[in-house]
């Protein structure tokens, strides 16, 4: 069950330009959290920003959580100023975790930019629960925006790098790297990143006949399935305008379910 917990910040460090890693003491939330779920962070006590900010769990420890985030606007800028020892209010865990299906012999995590955030926890879960070592396609604008490479290596994962400017790895989009890997049947693809990148990854997966799970983002108010503000359209019953709530029905979805043209 989700809860609201006052959490002490242990660490809040810049790991790349405008990217931070924060570790918070959150025994209640961490005790229940699973890879793919998220939390809502109160960025300050005042009323602007009015809403909490949704953030994935980068790593889940026995009594703490790690959050990897990019400074996008005012809320995340305020987060970047949290200092160790400070107490912040966190609500979670929210949403559905990544399903872990033992029937796949190959697990490929496709990350675009800050979309890598939920993947260290997922890699750990795949290793710990399924006894398989996932491989990672890590894509970003340029070399200094490639995050978590060392973490994945430490877990024993093969990492394929790709950058838009060719400063590291292939000069290619993540979805193109996936197509070139040409994984056979039995592989499972997980993706998280900009919408265009997930849409392209889904297209590659559908061409290759592979299942694909996507972790989506949307503007959120409640994070709890109440406000109906975070919906994305689905391909089922398009006429009726059917949609799913990213916060409550997701954020992880079968990418084939999402109407990417309507997002």
């Amino acid at each position: 069950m989700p809860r609201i917990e006052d959490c002490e910040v242990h660490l809040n460090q810049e790991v790349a330009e405008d990217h931070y890693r924060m570790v918070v003491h959150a025994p209640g939330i961490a005790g229940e959290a699973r890879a793919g779920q998220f939390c809502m962070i109160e960025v300050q006590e005042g009323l602007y920003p009015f809403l909490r900010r949704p953030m994935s769990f980068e790593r889940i420890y026995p009594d703490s959580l790690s959050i990897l985030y990019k400074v996008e606007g005012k809320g995340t800028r305020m987060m970047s100023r949290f200092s160790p020892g400070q107490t912040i209010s966190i609500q979670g865990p929210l949403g559905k975790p990544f399903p872990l299906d033992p029937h796949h012999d190959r697990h490929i995590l496709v990350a675009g930019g800050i979309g890598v955030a939920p993947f260290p926890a997922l890699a750990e879960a795949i290793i710990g629960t399924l006894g398989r070592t996932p491989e990672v396609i890590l894509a970003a604008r340029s070399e200094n925006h490639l995050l978590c490479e060392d973490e994945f290596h430490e877990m024993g994962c093969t990492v394929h790098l790709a950058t838009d400017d060719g400063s590291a790895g292939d000069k290619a989009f993540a979805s193109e790297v996936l197509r070139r890997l040409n994984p056979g049947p039995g592989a499972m693809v997980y993706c998280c990143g900009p919408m265009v990148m997930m849409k392209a990854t889904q297209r590659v997966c559908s061409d290759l006949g592979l299942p694909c799970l996507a972790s989506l983002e949307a503007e959120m108010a409640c994070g709890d399935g109440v406000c109906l503000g975070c919906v994305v359209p689905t391909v089922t019953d398009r006429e009726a305008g059917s949609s799913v709530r990213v916060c409550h029905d997701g954020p992880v979805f079968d990418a084939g379910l999402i109407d990417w043209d309507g997002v």
Partner: protein
Amino acid sequence: MTEDTRTSKQPTLQINLGGLVMKNPVTVGSGTFAYGEEYHQYFDVSRLGAVTVKSLSLEPRPGNKPPRLVETPAGMLNAIGLQNVGLDAYLREKMPFLRAHGCTIIGNIYGHNPEEYAELARRLEAEGGADAIEANLSCPNVHDAKNARGCQLVAQDPALVRRYTETIRNATGLPLFVKLSPNVIDIAESALAAEAGGANAVSLVNTLTGMGIDPETRRPMLSNIVGGLSGPAIRPVAVKLVWDAARAIQIPIIGMGGICNASDAMQFILAGATAVAVGSYTFRQPDAAIRVIDGLEDYCARHHVERITQLVGGMQL
């Protein structure tokens, strides 16, 4: 402590809202609490004076396309478009939870015409789906309202308010509340029309219409272009509208608009509201309404007030 000494010291928060007895004056804004189940994970929802459910229509509604939300200074704009499960699914799947937990239910309804509202009220009463009806005549986010621009509301025409209210009144014996729009020239006129139509209370206010434009893309921030503004940003406006209405009508008022804590709620009560609803702030702080209840009790104790009803309209001039 024995029950007797407790009750003799404890202020009474109980109210009678146009025939609906509530154990405290605090409910939630329709659409900010769904049907109660989600927030029951954080607290016992039966502690609320009443649960006001998301607007119900006869048929399920898919709502507007995304994006439906945008944050604003001290508030938010939404254009959900009254997405809801529809009356049948509510009665079958949602209402049993609220009943099982002993909640008092305010059934908020939305229809395309007076007859649909009447039908919704009739069925909610017949099937035990609500203890009072709140007719939403003021949602800014539906294109199928009176005209296609989605900005003209039933609540903006006092003659229509009266006609809709009369039709619903004839369909139900439950206490009937009419939810009005802040986007009017004279709120007293709207409230008087609801009173004349037979309403037992008015709910003030629904969201204020607003919009946002992304200067970089030059596109509207909401797919619906316009939306409803809620949150603390609208509170001073809402308090003033409650005060205006309270001086014009005899029936009680449910005040809402940006309530975050008991002090905010007290502003509405002192302006003339008998009950209050906590809306958007629940998104930030799920148990906000419970904190308001506790805070009101504390306020009464601190001010040596025995019954909260003694404070209604109690602004000192």
